[in-house]
Every structure is written in structure tokens, then in C-alpha cells.
């Protein structure tokens, strides 16, 4: 059983943060809330999202899995305005999710979850942790996108740096310690990432105030931020590009 009501903008955030990586996702429903883990088709990045029952207006559920076509759900969400409350009701016998937006009822068929493996989250030890305002970093990403496909993220004891090298131009965003919310780094670490992915992740985090970035040397970056006023949490993992081979 799964029966819930949720504000349109929160559901939209869930869709937006997930759909940058996958078209379909397997949602784990428990009495405590919903969660999902998914890897993109190119296996370069993954998302690990959880949304507690407190993020919902009403919430009643037992353990089950729902395979949802995010494109379809997004279609329905286009009918909603920001303040609307969406009602979700899983009909087990028909294997459909009944979504209600205002007076519109859409009975949405679900994706078979049998072919959707559980994504495993790598166990990483990332030495540097940077907490930064999303607005500070998004301008740097925009500037980098104009000149390159890749971006280097560096952290040391003094601050955090985002840099991109084009063929003739370069972009550098330096955020010293006092411009960061917090910084924990005992050594200098640097990794290179695909800007396509990183830019989408930063864009998805725009609704939240602060982003936690965990970094290593030629190692994945983990990006974490809260959604739904702290009742939900998103972790992205992005594998690095290593050119020295």
C-alpha cells in the first residue's frame, strides 16, 4: 500500500534531481519514506536520493518498489502550479499509480522493476570536505562551460578552486576559506570531471542553500545537499576523468 499527498514543488525537485541521470527509476517505498539509487546509462554518475515521510502532507505506506517513468511523471507535473498538492495512490491490482493534480486524474502504468538492478554505492574515503553556497559555484560552472568540456576541482588547506582549461582560454574560480561555509582539508587534492554532468548536478542543487562537496585525488566527487526543507537528502557521485594514463 502506498498513499500520499505531496506539494508539487517537492515532487518536481525529486524528478529534476533524478532525471538528469536516468529516464526511469526504481523507488523504494517504506513506512519511513521513499528512496532511490540509480546510475546513468554511461555509468559515469549516480544519484542516491531519500525523502522522509515528513516531506509529505500525508503519508501511509508499507514496503514496496515502484518503477517509475520519470518523463511521464514530469508530464503530469506540468499540469500543476507551484502551490498544488499532488495525491499519489498505488493500485496494486492494476499495477498503476493514480496521480491526482487538482481535478485531473492520471492512471499511470508502472515500469517492471525486475530488470532494474539495485545500484551499489561505492565505499569511498574522500579526504576533503567543502561546504559552499550553490550560487557561488554555479557562476563558475557557467563560465567554464563556455570554454571547455571538463572542470578541475581542487581543495587545499586555504580554500576551494574550480578551474577549466580551454584551447586558448582558461577559467578559474577561487573561493578562499572565508567565502566558504566550511572547509575541512589537510592536504591538496585535485580531480577532473566531465562538465556536462557536473553542471547538471549543480543546476539540480540550485534550490538548496549549501552544497557539500567531498573530494579526493583523481577520485570521484560526492555532492550532497538537502531538499524539502531538510526532510530529504540527495547524494550525487561523479567518476573522474584521468588523463595521465
Amino acid at each position: 500500500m502506498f498513499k500520499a499527498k505531496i506539494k508539487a514543488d517537492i515532487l518536481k525537485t525529486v524528478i529534476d534531481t533524478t532525471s538528469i541521470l536516468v529516464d526511469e527509476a526504481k523507488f523504494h517505498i517504506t513506512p519511513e519514506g521513499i528512496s532511490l539509487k540509480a546510475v546513468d546509462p554511461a555509468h559515469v554518475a549516480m544519484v542516491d536520493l531519500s525523502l522522509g515521510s515528513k516531506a509529505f502532507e500525508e503519508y501511509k505506506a508499507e514496503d514496496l518498489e515502484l518503477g517509475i517513468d520519470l518523463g511521464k511523471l514530469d508530464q503530469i507535473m506540468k499540469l500543476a502550479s507551484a502551490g498544488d498538492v499532488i495525491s499519489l495512490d498505488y493500485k496494486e491490482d492494476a499495477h498503476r499509480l493514480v496521480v491526482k493534480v487538482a481535478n485531473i486524474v492520471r492512471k499511470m502504468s508502472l515500469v517492471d522493476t525486475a530488470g532494474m538492478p539495485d545500484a551499489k554505492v561505492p565505499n569511498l574515503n574522500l579526504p576533503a570536505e567543502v561546504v559552499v553556497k550553490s550560487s557561488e559555484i554555479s557562476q563558475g560552472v557557467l563560465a567554464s562551460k563556455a570554454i571547455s568540456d571538463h572542470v578541475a576541482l581542487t581543495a587545499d588547506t586555504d580554500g576551494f578552486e574550480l578551474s577549466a582549461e580551454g584551447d586558448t582560454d582558461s577559467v578559474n574560480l577561487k573561493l578562499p576559506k572565508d567565502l566558504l561555509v566550511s572547509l575541512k582539508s589537510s592536504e591538496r587534492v585535485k580531480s577532473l570531471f566531465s562538465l556536462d554532468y557536473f553542471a547538471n548536478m549543480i543546476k539540480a542543487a540550485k534550490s538548496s542553500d549549501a552544497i557539500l562537496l567531498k573530494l579526493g585525488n583523481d577520485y570521484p566527487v560526492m555532492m550532497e545537499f538537502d531538499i524539502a526543507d531538510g526532510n530529504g537528502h540527495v547524494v550525487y557521485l561523479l567518476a573522474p576523468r584521468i588523463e595521465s594514463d
Partner: protein
Amino acid sequence: MSQWQDKNSTINRFVKNPRETFGEKKTVHRNQCILCRGTKMLCGKEKCPVLAKYFSKEKFSPALERNDIAGSSPPSVFIGRYGYPKVAIGPMLPPVLGDTTYLDTPELWQDITIEQLIDFRTQLVRGTHLADVHNLEGGGRIVDATREVALSVNAVDMEALFESKPSGGVKFYSEAQPHGPSAPIERLTLDNPKYEPRIEKAFYDTDLKSRDAVIGLHKDGSLVSRIQKAFSVGAFGEGKNRKFVPTRWSITAVDSMIGEHLMEKTKIAPTIDEYRIYEHIALDNRWIILLMPTEWCFELIEAWYPDTAWNPYDSKIQIFSSYEFYDGRDAYAEIGGCYYASRMAVNELLTSQGKQAGCVIMREAHPGYILPVGVWNVRENVRAALRTQPKKFESLNDAMFYATSNVLDIPAKRWINVSGVLKHRLYQRRVEDFLFTGESKSDRQDVGAKTGVDAEAKEGAGTDAGYEA
């Protein structure tokens, strides 16, 4: 977005930093030819000098030196693009009666030489008639006749009376096949053509969307060149949307539509298990089609040797590429219609095998390739390569080593340097490279909690462990 800003292209890199890539600045101007291929007039001249130098050389048979010609159109039509939406349309015919199908069926041109191709294509006289692309039904006798010819299943016997003797020499295009001289049509009489049944059915279905018609015909086995011909005379689509489509645009439109449709299937199929190399040599072009056991992505890299069609002035090999990853691309491919033709051919193979793969096509155009012969060359020769038995390899390195030591002349390092897809494959790590196998817990709470994982996980980096493993 203009082609110069598109980051999906390695061209961007070349144009921005000419010194590094080509040694000196003036070559930037020279390599415009590859980007332009006689269509954009980037050099500012009125006529493409590369193409123009061949116009005068060709001699025509005396049979073309007259105002009236009787012959069998293969069938063939040409829809021009200058002056759009008022363009020159009309059938093409040789001064010969009989079964001339071969003259306009690229699918049959497997073993010909450039000289043979030019020889018989030169015999095709292009009749022209100025028409509004939208005015299909009330366009008059010549418009009707042009459309009928394009839909015909056999060669169509006809007599054309021209306003003047055909002139203008042989014409070459980047997308379309070359043809002979042209003249405005004064009067046209033709035998009643018999339509190709499948195409006729789509023609009379004015509710069927053009894309669905093209895809359906391809699935049922109609030749791409036939579909494209019918497409160019506005034979498909919802009634009100039908119009003439310039030949050049129709070729790429059809390749692209079919390719995109097949790609939908490719992208959800299981991936192949090994690296494969398919090879083929034709018209002094060397082709390597590399398939990789990865998600769908595609790249066509073309290396033009000095003195080839689109590298007439430089003394160095010019290499260009366009590519896309799983999510596709937003802008038109810089290297033009050949990108879409080859992408379609690769997807034909993958869907027929029910497989997914990443694909990189490496093409070396050697000096014997003196003239552009049209996109069919790319489509048919990639298809020909894919009809052969591939060589299979364990790793990308092995595959590239075989390709560059047995078929290609340019070393692997240079291919990798200009390639978006190969670099991605070699340098981009995957999530599973960092999965710590043997670790049972994978919940988020554990992440970062363990120490000493770093070194061990790093050893695993670069392996191709399956994600579910």
C-alpha cells in the same frame, strides 16, 4: 548555436588554435574546404574553386548537344536549393532508352571506380523548372511529371524539349551524386509510370506522418535512395504539410530519421561482449568501424589527405570529427550529411543483431579520392564494411593496434587525440571502477566511514567489472 561554438566538435579546437594544430595561421583559411564542401561558400568566392576546376574538363557526348532528348529516366529527379522556396525542380534523363535503373541506384555501385561513376553520371541531363516548393497540386504539367517520375518503380521513357542546349558542365555536391549539364524544360512527355507499390501506398495516405512513412518503408525493405527520391518530391506526410524538399536536404533528412528511429532500439539493447573491428576499402577511402562493448555513442572521424576532394591546398592531413554520447547531440553535425548516413548504417547492423555498442568510424580519404561523389559513398561503404566478418578483440588497445597496423595509415595516438569518444572511453572512469568488491554494506551511512579503502579501490580503477558484479 553556430557550428563554431558547438563543443561536441573537435573542429572547435582546430579553429581556435591554428598554430598548434596546423603549424601556421593561414592554413585555417585553407581547411575551410572540409567544413564547407562547396555549400557554404566560406571562401567568399561565387563558385566553389575546388568544384569549378572539374567543370571544364569533362567532355560530353554529342547526344547531349541538342535541344531535345529522348531517354529513360532511371528514375531520377533533382530538386535544387538555391532561391528556396522557389527552386529548380525536374527529372534527370540520359540520352538512352532502356533499363537505366543503375544510373541512379547507389545501392548497386559497390565496385565502381570514380572514373566510371563520373562517366555515367555525366550522361544524366538535369531538366529544370522553377517551382514553388509548396505548390504541389496546382503546379502544372512539369511539377506533376517530376513527382510521377520520382515515385516510379522502373525507368521511365520520356522526351524532353529544352529551351536551350544543356549547359553548365558536370556538377558535384557534398551530399548528392554528381550529374551532367542542365537546361530549362519547355515541354515534357512521358510514358505512364508504374509506382513502386509500397511508396504508392504511403503517397496516397495523407494522414500518415512523413517520419512514419520513411521509417515504415525502410523497415519493409525499400531502398534508402528510393525513399529519399520520393521524400524530395513531397510524397509523404500529412496532406497540408507536403512540399518539395531540396535533394541535398532530403538525403540527410531520410538518413537522420531512419537512424534516430533505429537508435531508440539500440539504446535499450544489451551491449556486445567484445571490441570489434570491421574494415573496408573503396574509392581510395579506408574505413575502420570500431564497435565497443559500451553504451551507445557514436563518432565519425575523417582524415583528408593532401590533394583529396576537400583538402586541395594544404600539404598536411586534415582530420575532423563529429560525435555524440548516449543523450545525442543538439546541433547539426559539423562534418555534414555523412555523419547521419554512417550513423544510420551502424544502427542497421546493431538493431539487426539486437545489440548495443559504442561506435567510432575512422575514415582515411587517400589521394585517389579526387572528387566528392556524394553521401552514398559513406552510407554504402560503411554498410559494406559491416557486411564482413569482424575481427574481435579483448581490449580497445588491441583493436586500435590491429586497425592502425593493418588498415589505417595514421597512428592510433593521433586518432585518439582528435576523438571525443575514444578519449572518453580511455580517460573517463566509471562508477563501478570505485566499487569495493567484497564489501557487503553499500548504504550511504557507510560512505567515507572506512579508512584505508582508498588504495585498494584505486587498484580496481580502470577495470571493466560489470556494474552488477
